[in-house]
């Protein structure tokens, strides 16, 4: 399909509900206009609007402008104030060094915890830490500009991922065999930090949603046995703490291979799980679909960024066929973050396919669009 045809066809499938209406009705088990979907944050789409990631980071004006544009172009939910520390923020707050390339995402170049003797001296105090205060200040400013109306969200990374933002990954991975006691100490420390952060945010903004990701806990790095020995108990503490503060348990995204730990994730009580494209959505549904809401998993690079319009449509179709009748619900998502440089037409193809084949979505049932088009 060429871009002109896509634009034309798209008009046949307009949304008839707002994102909020759809989410609410879908959660209650009602049929909604189309399958709920997510499509990455504004930071991934900056280039489409002629900005660099650096310009986006530095300017609230740019962030506001993009939030509005993404709302109209890509079904975004508008501006939100986020204090999510993402994968590296907690490490940076503690003294790991990050670089911020003008035209790319940030990354860590130096890790603060050289030896465990330093661990007791690492202080994580949201009220006095300059990095954390800057994050709070930005969120306050965004809120003020919207007259207090925008949503405030927070979050961060799971224990394993935060640990390797504090201590050099290869050293920490060795510690898991050679220095287990200290590895656990560090993991526990990450949990205490995250909980302080969530508490501090809730004290200021009230009860707000928390999002979690933990890519470093995947089988690309550690075994199932190590997950159970190191990651799981600390995840459990983190979830219990978040539940105590906010009253709810957050969902989680884990990049990479996770099949071996799906049952553990359900057992830990995660209400939702967003899966990487390297895993099979149908298998996920069969294994834990009756316990968690699942989402995924259009391949971000090979399909969304580098594929054609038809590749994207086909991939969305397959996701809907495999996932949309998952008992606890399903939302369409990309297997990981939307890559910088993803073309506009592929993002539109994703939305088009979600609206067309995902029309008439209801929890636990295949989308009506699939059935009417004899695809399932």
């Amino acid at each position, binding site marked *: 399909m060429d871009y002109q045809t896509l634009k034309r066809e798209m008009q046949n499938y307009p949304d008839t509900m707002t994102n909020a209406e759809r989410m609410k009705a879908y959660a209650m088990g009602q049929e909604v206009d189309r399958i709920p979907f997510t499509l990455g944050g504004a930071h991934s789409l900056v280039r489409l609007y002629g900005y660099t990631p650096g310009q986006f980071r530095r300017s609230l004006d740019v962030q506001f402008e993009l939030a509005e544009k993404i709302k109209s172009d890509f079904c975004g939910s508008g501006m939100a104030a986020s204090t999510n520390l993402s994968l590296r923020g907690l490490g940076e707050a503690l003294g790991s060094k990050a670089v911020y*390339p003008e*035209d*790319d*995402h940030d*990354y*860590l*170049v130096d890790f603060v915890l050289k030896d465990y003797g330093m661990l007791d001296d690492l202080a994580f105090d949201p009220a006095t830490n300059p990095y954390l205060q800057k994050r709070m200040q930005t969120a306050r400013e965004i809120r003020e500009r919207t007259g207090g109306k925008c949503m405030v969200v927070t979050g961060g990374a799971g224990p394993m991922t935060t640990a390797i933002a504090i201590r050099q*990954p*290869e050293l920490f*991975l*060795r510690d*898991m*065999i*050679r220095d287990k006691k200290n590895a656990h100490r560090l993991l526990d420390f990450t949990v205490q930090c995250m909980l302080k952060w969530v508490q501090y945010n809730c004290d200021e903004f009230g009860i707000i949603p928390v999002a979690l990701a933990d890519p470093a806990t995947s*089988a*690309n*790095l*550690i*075994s199932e046995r*190590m997950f159970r020995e190191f990651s799981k108990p600390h995840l459990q503490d983190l979830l219990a703490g978040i539940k105590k503060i906010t009253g709810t348990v957050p969902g989680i995204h884990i990049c990479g291979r996770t099949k071996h730990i799906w049952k553990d994730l359900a057992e830990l009580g995660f209400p939702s799980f967003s899966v990487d494209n390297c895993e099979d959505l149908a298998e996920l549904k069969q294994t834990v679909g009756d316990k968690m809401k699942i989402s995924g998993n259009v391949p*971000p*690079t*090979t399909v969304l*960024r*580098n594929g054609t319009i038809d590749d994207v449509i086909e991939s969305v179709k397959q996701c809907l066929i495999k996932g949309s009748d998952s008992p606890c619900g399903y939302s369409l998502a990309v297997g990981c973050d939307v*890559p*910088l*440089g993803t073309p506009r037409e592929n993002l539109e193809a994703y939305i088009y396919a979600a609206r067309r084949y995902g029309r008439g979505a209801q929890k636990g049932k295949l989308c009506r669009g699939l059935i009417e088009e004899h695809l399932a």
Partner: protein
Amino acid sequence: MSADKEKLLAELDRCVVEMDDETVAGVAQEYVDNGFDAYDGIVNGLSKGMEKAGELYEQEEYFVPELLICSDAMYNGLDVLRPHLPKDAGHGSAAVVIGVVQGDTHDIGKNLVKIMLEAAGFQVYDLGRDVEPRAFVDKAKEVGASIICLSTLMTTTMHNMKTVVDLLREEGLQDKIKVMIGGGPVSQAYAAQIGADAYTTDAAAAAGWAKAAAAEEQNQ
């Protein structure tokens, strides 16, 4: 081969594959003290153990932490054996240039590939991370490498792999120097698209491909 030598080789092998990174130096020392050939100790002891570790990694028995400790054991053993190699040892072993492409600093994958390549007997020139494309080509020319290994975990830096392939073409070196790529966002399709010679999924597979490529070159 004497029974003692055989026993010590098996012990070097075991130390590596069983992550015994503390005992290995003593075993290696005993091996050289007995006057046994250092090169044999590396190839039939340490490297053998590392290859087994690589197989366990492919079979998902071992993961990254285990492989790192095995490599610590291998390098601890190498530190003892290497000074006892004859001066011309290493000559004739194929050279490989490896690094993480410009703009990316994720290097766990690259380091694992390096470990497996060294275990397989390659002379590995590691340019580290965030390496500009030209540096790969220059180094490969300087050391006469027949393989360049490029790694990245990020979609935003993948294009630098293509730049390396293009630079080799510009200089007419594409038949002389092969390019292998790997990393999270990279795929077989991407390798074909940019004209890289190979895409491999993990460190053990990377070393396997490199060995086959080097053998093929020797037969030509």
